[in-house]
């Protein structure tokens, strides 16, 4: 059923009790053409684009937990594309282009809000970094404005530009913003199922069957399944799945935390990021401040970060915005993120034939969801990455052609 004003009015006559389920819970079939392992935004999106753009009929998405219960529902929902290197710019801007049409494409309001993102600069070095990145963005067709201190103070009334680490300027991307993260998973799930994709929840992959160097099947908690092609899209557990297939990855899995404040009236109409003092903050439509910062430095699968990281988030926040100092923080939570050496994702082929992987998005995968899913669908369908995905191959760790965004931005994204 299409979500429309007509159907809204029609369903109001039955007190909104007869809406169709957005997606069902089918049984696992014995055989599929393509199985996507991981039912987050990237995985569901991959299944959606495989069905829609490449006409693949027989697809399943296997999700260990429930749709939207993993990192897709645990992030701080920031979307931007102002990356330094050409390869990253192409990938993340492809995503922003898709974000702009996503709600109408999926017939599901993902609440994409292009409220603008300010990357703050606190030192001469920071100013040089944002200037370099801003010009790099211009050359790649990404909108960027380099602002001075007065311009920042004027646009963000509550910011303290004369704190311990004064705000000297900012890099503004007006097309950046936020989206409703749950809606992204739900929207892709519903749209994919409408195209015939089976979404199997509570189905964990326990083994990968390989014959003559080609993937042939999967062992799951709901039985075994024969497959022609498999796409692994497992944020937080990439190494675990790769080990099942007998190869390893250049990845460390670490905890990343976020937290939200009590809801307040509108006070912050943009997204703020600071690499140097290291905090990012935006205000959700419910009125909560959504705050994030860096990941813990040690490997963990516990989905729980350390307490001192919370202090590291709050200290720069109240320094930048003294007005927030009396807000209560309501909730904090952690997710596990897969971090690569160059802080760029891995998209492409694996040592196993017809087994593809899309992982290593580290601390910033949400922003890339539609772009990642779109290029990975093409990779799985054609068996080869397209021009956007090609630089992010696993092979770059042998050739040395890293896409070193960590050094570029000096921060976990």
């Amino acid at each position, binding site marked *: 059923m299409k979500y429309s004003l007509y159907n809204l009015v029609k369903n109001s006559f039955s007190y909104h009790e007869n809406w169709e389920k957005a997606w069902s819970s089918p049984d696992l079939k014995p055989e599929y053409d393509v199985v996507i392992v991981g039912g987050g935004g990237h995985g569901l999106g991959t299944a959606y684009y495989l069905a829609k753009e490449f006409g693949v009929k027989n697809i399943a998405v296997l999700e260990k937990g429930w749709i939207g219960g993993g990192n897709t529902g645990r992030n701080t929902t920031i979307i931007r594309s102002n990356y330094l290197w050409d390869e990253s710019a192409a990938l993340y801007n492809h995503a922003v282009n898709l974000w702009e049409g996503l709600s109408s494409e999926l017939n599901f309001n993902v609440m994409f809000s292009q409220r603008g993102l300010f990357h703050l600069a606190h030192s001469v070095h920071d100013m040089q970094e944002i200037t370099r990145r801003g010009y790099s963005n211009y050359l790649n067709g990404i909108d960027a404005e380099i602002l001075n201190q007065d311009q920042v103070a004027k646009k963000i009334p509550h910011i303290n530009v004369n704190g311990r680490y004064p705000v000297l300027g900012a890099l503004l991307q007006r097309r950046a913003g936020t989206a409703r993260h749950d809606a992204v998973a739900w929207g892709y799930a519903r749209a994919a199922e409408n195209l015939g994709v089976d979404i199997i929840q509570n189905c964990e992959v326990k083994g990968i069957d390989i014959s003559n160097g080609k993937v042939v099947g999967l062992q799951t908690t709901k039985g075994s399944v024969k497959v022609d092609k498999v796409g692994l899209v497992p944020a937080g557990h990439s190494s675990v799945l790769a080990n099942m297939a007998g190869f*390893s*990855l250049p990845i460390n899995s670490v905890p990343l935390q976020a937290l939200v404040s009590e809801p307040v009236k509108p006070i912050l109409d943009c997204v703020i990021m600071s690499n140097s003092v290291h905090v990012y903050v935006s205000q959700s439509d419910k009125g909560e401040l959504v705050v994030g910062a860096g990941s813990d*430095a040690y490997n963990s699968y516990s989905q*729980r970060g*350390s307490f001192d990281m919370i202090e590291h988030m709050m200290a720069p926040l109240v320094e930048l915005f003294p007005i927030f100092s009396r807000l209560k923080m309501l909730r904090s939570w952690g997710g596990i993120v897969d971090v690569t*050496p160059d802080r760029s994702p891995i998209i492409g082929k694996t040592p196993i034939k017809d087994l593809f992987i899309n992982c290593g998005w580290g601390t910033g995968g949400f922003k890339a969801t539609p772009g990642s899913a779109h290029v990975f669908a093409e990779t799985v369908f054609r068996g080869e990455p397209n021009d956007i995905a090609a630089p992010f191959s696993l092979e770059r760790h042998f050739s040395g052609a890293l896409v070193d965004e960590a050094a570029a931005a000096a921060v976990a994204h």
Partner: protein
Amino acid sequence: MFIINCPYCGERDQTEFTCHGEAHIARPDNPSEISDEEWGKYLFFRENPKGTHFERWTHDHGCRRWFNVMRDTVTDQIIKTYKMGEAKPVISNE
């Protein structure tokens, strides 16, 4: 947050320490002879286990010495800390 038993200083708060990733990775003896693939594996590829992990820490705000930690990455429980150069502990099946 962990309480870490530094082999030199005893139990201290985690904020005094920094983690430096997987331990017991030996630099190849013959870097000029090995393939790009072998060198890439040495530089970048890690075990990243869901379970027992051996890792290097430094006591930055204490003795400033390096040591190894055996820790469970699911429960975050520290099983053992030991000095650099000591043998890698055996994982028991209990």
